[in-house]
């Protein structure tokens, strides 16, 4: 079978089958690149950000892009590859000048750092060598996820009153070795896999956004494919966070961190591409070697005509052990054959949404995920859920109640009530209705041990740029690059 995009005179054999069309490798790379570049040039702000602006000595005109790169996210790898090709073109066409520089940021955990560093360094090194220029077009940053706790000076103890779902907080300063870690949060607080993943994801996003703010970036390029975006949208709906969809997809407004206006906008350059297309691109460009869990990725379905697609999600995994996002991903995979346009429909529908009208007295943000709160979730939940018991009627019931009070369970409940009472007394006096969004309230109420979570006050986050593990890595990379550069000369 031949490629349907090549010039008729020299048609190459097709290797990829996508959207009912056959492509050769070259045409497919072109197809994916164009889709991404179209998003990068979607409005004036981004056009000015990426293009080379003359006169060249105007430093302000150099766009500063933050590209969160993860070795477990194929989208970010493909995005970097296409951005890199654009940089190469600009260098060639504009006499060794580019319109923007790229800060590559990787968030790592203690245990995966050596592998992550090795993979990401070798990828960026390869890219730098191709650029054939010793300028700082790329800057590489590594941030330990525990910086989420280390870079904040205050934490809040959040507790939910299981009688009326009101949230109470108690703030305190932290310092020295008194810091929380991701392992503690995952192991001691989270009761299931889904809450663990949700909190980790919130931490990563907050770190990336605060880094962009501190580093003065103009845009964050997220590597979400159309499939991934649809998965996130439906997952937000399922988690009771439907009101956040419009803000999540907003690429027109500047972001707003802790009510501090930011200089950056969010961009989803891969939003026109399906995940299967990204997997195919990875295989063609031989980028899969940089992925962690590459063997899994190799078995991910792609639209390659030469390979038999196989389902990516582990079929052995029990539904109970899956996260909401994984179940949604599985749902999309299951219905993709019969209802192929579902993924694009979800995204198109979500793009038509806007923020709901807020009925809060004063604008407030969720203390966990930092999203806007539009209505009081405690009141809503209290209106639809009754928590008062049917009265005790007989002596036997009275006897059993006393037994319960004296038991460990009763004592644990007394302990919870004492803790609640303490925090209620020390409540920091802020409005009762501005603590958590609905989704995080449910998370705290159902998936966190003792309905009590200690969480950093993100508005006290500071010094993130200085805490990056970049200096040593970057100097090593530059050192290697310069040697090669000299050799070439």
């Amino acid at each position: 079978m031949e490629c349907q995009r090549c010039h008729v005179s020299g048609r190459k054999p097709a290797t990829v089958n996508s959207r009912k069309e056959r492509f050769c490798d070259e045409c497919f790379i072109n197809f994916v690149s164009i889709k991404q570049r179209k998003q990068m040039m979607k409005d004036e702000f981004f056009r000015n950000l990426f293009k080379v602006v003359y006169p060249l000595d105007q430093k302000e005109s150099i766009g500063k892009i933050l590209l969160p790169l993860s070795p477990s996210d194929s989208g970010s790898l493909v995005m970097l590859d296409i951005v890199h090709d654009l940089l190469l073109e600009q260098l060639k066409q504009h006499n060794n000048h580019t319109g923007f520089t790229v800060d590559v940021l990787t968030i790592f955990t203690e245990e995966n750092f050596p592998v992550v560093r090795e993979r990401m360094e070798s990828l960026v090194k390869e890219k730098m060598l191709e650029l054939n220029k010793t300028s700082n077009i790329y800057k590489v940053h590594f941030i330990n996820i525990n910086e989420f706790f280390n870079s904040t000076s205050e934490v809040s103890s959040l507790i939910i009153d299981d009688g009326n779902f009101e949230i109470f907080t108690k703030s305190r300063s932290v310092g020295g070795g008194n810091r929380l870690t991701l392992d503690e949060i995952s192991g001691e607080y989270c009761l299931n896999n889904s809450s663990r993943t949700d909190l980790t994801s919130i931490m990563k996003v907050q770190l990336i956004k605060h880094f962009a703010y501190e580093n003065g970036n103009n845009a964050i390029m997220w590597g979400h494919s159309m499939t991934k975006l649809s998965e996130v949208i439906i997952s937000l709906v399922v988690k009771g966070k439907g009101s956040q969809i419009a803000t999540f997809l907003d690429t027109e407004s500047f972001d707003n961190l802790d009510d501090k206006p930011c200089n950056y906008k969010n961009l989803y350059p891969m939003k026109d591409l399906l995940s299967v297309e990204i997997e195919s691109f990875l295989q063609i460009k031989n980028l899969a070697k940089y992925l962690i869990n590459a063997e899994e990725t190799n078995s991910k379905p792609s639209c390659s005509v030469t390979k038999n697609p196989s389902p990516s999600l582990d079929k052995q995994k029990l539904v109970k052990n899956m996260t909401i996002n994984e179940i949604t991903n599985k749902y999309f995979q299951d219905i993709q054959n019969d209802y192929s346009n579902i993924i694009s429909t979800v995204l198109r529908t979500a793009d038509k949404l806007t923020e709901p009208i807020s009925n809060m007295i004063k604008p407030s943000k969720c203390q966990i995920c930092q999203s806007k709160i539009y209505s009081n979730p405690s009141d809503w939940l209290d209106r639809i859920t009754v928590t008062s018991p049917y009265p005790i009627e007989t002596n036997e019931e009275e006897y059993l109640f006393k037994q319960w009070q004296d038991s460990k369970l009763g004592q644990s409940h007394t302990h919870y009530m004492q803790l609640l009472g303490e925090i209620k007394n020390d409540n920091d006096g802020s409005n009762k209705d501005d603590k958590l969004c609905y989704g995080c309230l449910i998370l705290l109420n159902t998936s966190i041990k003792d309905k009590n979570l200690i969480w950093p006050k993100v508005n006290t986050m500071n010094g993130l740029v200085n805490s990056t593990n970049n200096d040593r890595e970057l100097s090593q990379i530059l050192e290697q690059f310069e040697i090669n550069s000299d050799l070439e000369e």
Partner: protein
Amino acid sequence: MSFTAPSDPVNKPVKVKVSQLCELCHSRKALIRRPKNLSKLCKQCFCSVFETEIHNTIVANNLFQRGERIAVGASGGKDSTVLAHMLKLLNERYDYGIEIVLLSIDEGIVGYRDDSLATVKRNQQQYGLPLEIFSFKDLYNWTMDEIVSVAGIRNSCTYCGVFRRQSLDRGAAKLGISHVVTGHNADDMAETVLMNILRGDVARLEKSTAIITQSSGSPIKRSKPFKYSYQKEIVLYAHYMKLDYFSTECTYAPEAFRGTAREYMKNLEAVRPSCIVDIIQSGENLALKAKKSNAKKKVVKFVDGNRCSKCGYLSSNIICKACMLLEGLEKSRAQVSIENDTSTEGAAMKLRALEKLSF
């Protein structure tokens, strides 16, 4: 030797462990895990909580007015049976001052609706409520069995949904009632929110979680007091209150795409039992961007309260959906038929019987 009486194995008191106690009252043995939040509850607490939550929904949304006549859409199934029971109970307990009438629609599905209508008739006796039955045959001159024989089984839900909705309104209007209450539950609501997003049905997106729906030109309003009640809890309540309901699912196949959404929700519930109300909460907060005005494009604007030029029923188009479907059906109706032909009757029942056959 003295005689020792054996212990009485029947009347021996059962010792309840503390860990087995209800998580609300801590004084009775828990019998169920509440589907909404998996808390362990005793029968008394569960029923009390379930009834109070529905009462709270009714009061918070100001669903009923004193002196109002209410038609309960009664199919004989679990939702409508519990609804009829619940409204009668709460009306007496909290003195809403409403008059309740059971309103049933006979779609003409032999082997399914005739059996469920028998349940509704028993409910009428049990609750002492008046009952009115309207049939598709009388209103449209078609039964669902006849429609399926002409239009096929795949589209059965489309026809049934459109005609039943209109029949309830027509039936209520004939009885001089302006408020129809239906047994749509939280699962139905959440499913609709998801389906509207997955299908991109923007027109219905914002209104998909409304507890009261009414078009400006219509005298009939509809409400859903079970908006926040889980289907499983309705079934459990019916079980504990020993309510008489018809539990067989409609014999015609459910829509395939809806089936996938149901399966998806079932998986979600295994991980996050609260997901059903969470989806409703999301649905209540979905707002659409204002449409960009396009001067060049001539748009026929939808006016709430438009009437069908054929039957006079509310419609956003020149003719209503029911008349449009009927027109199509009439074209496909056989010109010649056998007198007293009953071959189309109970097609669904036969299909079910065939499915059960094994070799």
